[in-house]
């Protein structure tokens, strides 16, 4: 009983709750009830404790009302963590809503799509009879409401009125009796299914791109030639046209079959019972039944279920939750900064009340009572800050979404959705943020309270500093050995027991071993050396690029975002500790180098002496600053390295090409150079070279086996056939090529001359887990070895690889156009590559080419720039989000200065009496906070650059990127942080100087 009485139950209850909540939240994604229970238990535990100690509760709460302004600042500092958690979750909610509604919009009434492809990549057509038979079977599947067979092909469409054209839009032939799949709407009004012979519907998005209106004349190019049609009405991109987000024209099936010269259908759409949302729940069962129909030998083995609403909605949700997780990971640095601020605030509160606490202890209050009084006060702060923080999180999330919307809008007219319209927050996210925000604060407060309660009565009353822990303290030795054992244990557990070679576990294990050794050394060499050696080793260890260590061969996971967070914490902790414990020596050197003389010395002396004497508080504050500046610097390093190399990469990827044109197969261009010459809007003089490339699809054997069937996996791949001029003049470079050839040109020419040779794109080399999904990731491609393609008749075609390119934009297999014709019977030149005399004219000429030849023409430089710009904006968004932590740091320093002024009033009086002018006092405080923020900034920037180098070494060097430090950006952030700190610390510093010396001396 006495043990229970002595034991403060609140702290363990809260710690256990946080651990439970965190692990359950991570693994099971529980519902609202779980969080309500957690809140109920934690508040219940505190309330029971309060009821038993009502006097202590009064002491705690009256301290809140004692200095209202100060309490407001404390709450502001505490709520940052909740804001970050809430806003991250709300961003996730919004993204999820957006992706789900986007999926519903794309699928509309359709729940499953069935189609197939032939070996040459073309769509499989099902005869009328086959379709009718199949649809009968499908309709018998439980929960299937309707089936429709349609024709969908891409055609080149031109608005004859406005001359706008789209070379690859859809021509959809619909079944007029399939109303279960939605109707056509015009401004919400249902339109008839029947259309006159030469009439079509066009969706609003396509109308926008083609500047079309009802009544405009269109021309379409199909395999049967050019046809003229009229737009009957522009219909909303929803309902019947919602499928695949519009992008086309719609006409009855028979008319489409006529224009395309096809018989039968090439796409089967299935709708389940229930509405747009309700149909999704039957998908799993229906897809299972459909797949049974399409097994080999069943007569429909070329068909497969290609789209599945339930699967895509769920994958969308998954993808968007990763977005939210990324915000949480980036925000975790700010949360840590917030936790440190909480510790600092409570340590300061404790120092302020040291005297009265000493007296309280002297008159009979136990340590437990002091801790509880603090805990009750902290609980009130935690509760209020979590409530306000959760609400503020909504605002911050809204700003993030607003910013993201502006990023997406730079995609231009291709974006037909609005993230802002989908802004959404669930009660679960708010309660989750509140719970975690409150628990994190409560735990931090609990530990701070423990520290506070350990005061010596006499030292507290007489304000005597705490003695240093003796060098030969056995406690420290035991602690050192324990840390070492934990470190070894972590490593052993990770490698031998869990059999998980995760880099994070190994690094943390080694770090604990180093820390343990540091604590042990401390016993023999003293504080400074023990800590300097340990933190120095850790600093070097975490700074070295991971790929230099021999781990990667055995390590499963070479480190994701959590590793970045871990490395940030260890690096910055080591850096700050190293600085704080060697600050006197560092300052001594700086002062000597600076040659400081006369007046500034006095204020500078006090400005640096105070923080150095209060190492814990100073270290924590520097840490707050350094951690945030570190993350922002790393972000800028990544953006900087990518932006700096983008031009070089673009050049490498483009190989001197400026425009890529893709023609509709129905609208091939035989001799593009002649067409340019003939066209009055273009001049051949603007072009260095124009290449016509034959393109097609093939199936490629991989070296990986399907775990289910144990057969080799076959993947589709693009292939390109080039002519003599391309082999003679193109400027693409090789990552590697056969040593048989001395020059890269010889490789091209050899492949042109020999149909058995091929060249592969760069993704066959760089394919790793970071790369985009690509067939190359599964193909064992080596110079001099064969790859096996499958011909249209199913026979294997072996080709020898003689080179792998640097570029990977055009992914696939490159061979001579003769080989394409001989082996695959492909002769149509569908891809056009333009090398311009003036690369800056790319955008302008691409528009002309698109307009004049009805082909899709993309200016590569503009596309790359747009991509870089969007990527940069996303990084900026994350940087802005992380800057929330900077606010913690700046506000924290403001609070600390305010507190320092208060704490040192009498000393200010002494300084004033011995000759410090007002400005000396102001300067002394400003210099003090500047010293702290500058130390944090320098440590953060230095370590950020070091980790930036490691990231470059591990991730970018392989891409042949140059290392680059974006100093201007980093310095701007550093300057903003520094100036903001000064701005926040000027008011309290100025108020310090306003204190009358006599008043200050009288102050107790």
């Amino acid at each position: 009983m006495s043990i229970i009485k002595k034991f403060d139950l609140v702290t363990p209850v809260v710690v256990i709750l946080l651990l439970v909540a965190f692990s359950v939240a991570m693994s099971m994604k529980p519902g609202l009830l779980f969080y309500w229970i957690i809140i109920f238990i934690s508040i219940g535990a505190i309330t029971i404790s309060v009821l038993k100690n009502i006097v202590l509760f009064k002491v705690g709460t009256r301290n809140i009302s004692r200095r209202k302004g100060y309490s407001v600042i404390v709450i502001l500092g505490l709520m940052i963590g909740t804001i970050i958690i809430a806003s991250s979750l709300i961003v996730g909610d919004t993204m999820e809503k957006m992706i789900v509604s986007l999926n519903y919009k794309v699928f509309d009434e359709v729940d499953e799509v069935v189609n197939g492809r032939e070996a040459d990549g073309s769509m499989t057509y099902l005869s009328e009879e086959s379709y009718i038979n199949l649809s009968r079977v499908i309709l018998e599947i439980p929960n299937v409401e309707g089936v429709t067979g349609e024709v969908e092909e891409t055609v080149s469409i031109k608005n004859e009125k406005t001359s706008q054209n789209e070379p690859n839009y859809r021509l959809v032939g619909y079944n007029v009796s399939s109303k279960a799949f939605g109707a056509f709407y015009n401004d919400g009004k249902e339109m008839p299914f029947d259309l006159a012979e030469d009439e079509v519907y066009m969706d609003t998005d396509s109308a926008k791109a083609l500047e079309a209106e009802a009544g405009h004349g269109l021309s379409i190019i199909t395999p049967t030639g050019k046809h003229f049609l009229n737009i009957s009405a522009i219909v909303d991109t929803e309902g019947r046209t919602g499928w695949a987000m519009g992008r086309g024209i719609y006409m009855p099936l028979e008319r489409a079959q006529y224009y395309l010269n096809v018989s039968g259908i090439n796409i089967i759409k299935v709708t389940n019972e229930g509405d747009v949302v309700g149909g999704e729940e039957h998908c799993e069962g229906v897809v299972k039944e459909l797949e049974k129909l399409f097994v080999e030998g069943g007569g429909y083995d070329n068909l497969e279920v290609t789209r599945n609403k339930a699967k895509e909605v769920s994958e969308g949700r998954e993808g968007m939750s990763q977005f939210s997780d990324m915000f949480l990971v980036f925000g975790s640095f700010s949360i840590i900064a917030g936790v440190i601020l909480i510790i600092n605030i409570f340590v300061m509160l404790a120092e302020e009340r040291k005297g009265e606490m000493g007296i309280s202890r002297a008159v009979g209050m136990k340590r437990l009572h002091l801790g509880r009084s603090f805990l009750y006060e902290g609980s009130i702060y935690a509760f209020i800050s979590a409530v306000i923080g959760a609400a503020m999180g909504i605002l911050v999330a809204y700003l993030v979404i607003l910013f993201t919307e502006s990023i997406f809008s730079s995609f231009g007219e291709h974006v037909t959705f609005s993230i802002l319209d989908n802004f959404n927050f669930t009660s679960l996210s708010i309660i989750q943020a509140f719970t975690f925000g409150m628990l994190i604060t409560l735990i931090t407060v609990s530990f701070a309270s423990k520290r506070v309660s350990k005061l010596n009565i006499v030292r507290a009353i007489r304000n005597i500093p705490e003695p240093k822990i003796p060098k030969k303290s056995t406690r420290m030795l035991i602690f050192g050995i324990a840390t070492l054992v934990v470190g070894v244990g972590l490593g052993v557990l990770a490698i031998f027991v869990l059999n998980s070679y995760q880099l994070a576990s190994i690094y943390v294990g080694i770090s604990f071993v180093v820390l343990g050794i540091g604590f042990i050394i401390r016993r023999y060499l003293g504080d400074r050396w023990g800590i300097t050696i340990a933190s120095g080793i850790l600093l070097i260890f975490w700074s070295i690029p991971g790929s230099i260590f021999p781990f990667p061969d055995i390590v499963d996971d070479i480190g994701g975002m959590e590793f970045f967070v871990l490395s940030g914490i260890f690096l910055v902790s080591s850096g700050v500790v190293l600085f704080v414990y060697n600050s006197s020596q560092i300052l001594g050197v700086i002062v000597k180098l600076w040659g400081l003389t006369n007046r500034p010395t006095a204020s500078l002396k006090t400005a640096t002496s105070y923080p150095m004497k209060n190492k814990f508080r100073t270290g924590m504050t520097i840490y707050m600053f350094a951690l945030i500046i570190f993350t922002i610097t790393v972000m800028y390093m990544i953006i900087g390295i990518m932006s700096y190399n983008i031009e070089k990469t673009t050049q490498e990827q483009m190989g001197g090409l400026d425009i890529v044109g893709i023609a509709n197969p129905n609208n091939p261009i035989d001799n593009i150079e002649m067409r340019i010459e003939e066209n009055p809007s273009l001049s051949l003089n603007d072009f260095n070279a124009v290449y016509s490339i034959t393109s097609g699809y093939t199936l490629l054997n991989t070296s990986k086996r399907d775990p289910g069937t144990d057969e080799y996996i076959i993947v589709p791949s693009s292939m390109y056939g080039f002519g003599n001029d391309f082999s003679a003049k193109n400027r693409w470079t090789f990552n590697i090529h056969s040593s048989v050839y001395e020059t890269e040109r010889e490789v091209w020419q050899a492949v042109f001359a020999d149909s058995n040779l091929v060249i592969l794109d760069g993704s066959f080399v760089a394919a790793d887990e970071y790369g985009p999904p690509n067939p190359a990731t599964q193909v064992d491609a080596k110079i001099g070895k064969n790859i096996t393609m499958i011909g249209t008749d199913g026979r294997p075609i072996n080709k020898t690889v003689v080179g792998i390119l640097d570029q990977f934009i055009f992914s696939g297999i490159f061979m001579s156009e003769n080989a394409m014709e001989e082996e695959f019977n492909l002769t149509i030149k569908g891809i056009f590559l333009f090398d311009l005399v003036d690369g800056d004219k790319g955008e302008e000429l691409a528009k002309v080419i698109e307009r004049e030849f009805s082909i899709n023409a993309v200016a590569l430089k503009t596309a790359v720039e747009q991509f870089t710009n969007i990527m940069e904006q996303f990084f900026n968004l994350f940087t802005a989000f992380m800057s929330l932590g900077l606010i913690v740091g700046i506000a924290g320093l403001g609070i600390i200065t305010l507190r320092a002024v208060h704490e040192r009033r009498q000393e200010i009086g002494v300084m004033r009496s011995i000759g410090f002018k007002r400005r000396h006092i102001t300067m002394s405080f400003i210099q003090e906070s500047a010293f702290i923020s500058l130390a944090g900034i320098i440590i953060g920037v230095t370590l950020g650059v070091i980790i930036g180098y490691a990231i470059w070494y591990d991730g970018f060097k392989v891409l042949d990127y140059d290392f680059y430090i974006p100093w201007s950006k980093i310095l701007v952030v550093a300057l903003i942080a520094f100036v903001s700190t000064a701005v926040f610390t000027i008011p309290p510093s100025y108020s310090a100087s306003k204190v009358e010396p006599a008043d200050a001396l009288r102050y107790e």
Partner: protein
Amino acid sequence: MMAIISCTNLHKTYDTGKVKVHALRGLDLSIGKGGMVAVMGPSGCGKTTLLNCLSGLDSVTEGEVYVENMKINDLSDNKKTEHRAMRMGFVFQFYNLLPVLSALENVELPLLVSGVRPKVAREKALKALDLVGLKDWAPHVPAELSGGERQRVTIARALVNNPAIVWADEPTGDLDKKTSNGIMDLMCRLNKENKQTFVIVTHDPGVAARAGRQIRMEDGKIVKDYSNGDDSTD
């Protein structure tokens, strides 16, 4: 003897918002150069307020204060501060040393702030510490010194810029009898040797007895003024 400090009709009222406290009620006083004057009286009689007003640490509500022929209450804060730094030294009951600085750094601080070169300031500070017998304790921070030693550091800090006037507010208030005597011996010696003026606020009749002149205050007024004629020490 020429007056180094004088005041006429000196009033000081503290306005706390709710009540007004009249700490000084029309004082007239003149202190000769090189003297040692003890100000005595019960708690709350205005001794420290008088010292603060005369030294320029506090503003006056009414009246005039002259220090070395300068009307101190007309000076700007900066001028007053400069004058304090160059011409005055302060000794407080609770030493009021800056805890984060060593004894030597505490002593050199007034010199540095008044623009003396760091090297010169260090030499003078060491000399001042030597004068109070604490040269060997120069690198120690206040927490490592005894009460008497801390007060001697305070005296060294007060004397380091060779001030004309040393203001001491209960300099022995926190010390035992023996240490208190030692501190008074030191101050009397310095007063005699350097001819510096000492104004000492004290409760201790023994300390006051060592001064050449004793002023007794009650309720913000001077009620008795014992002088041996030239304000000098015994």
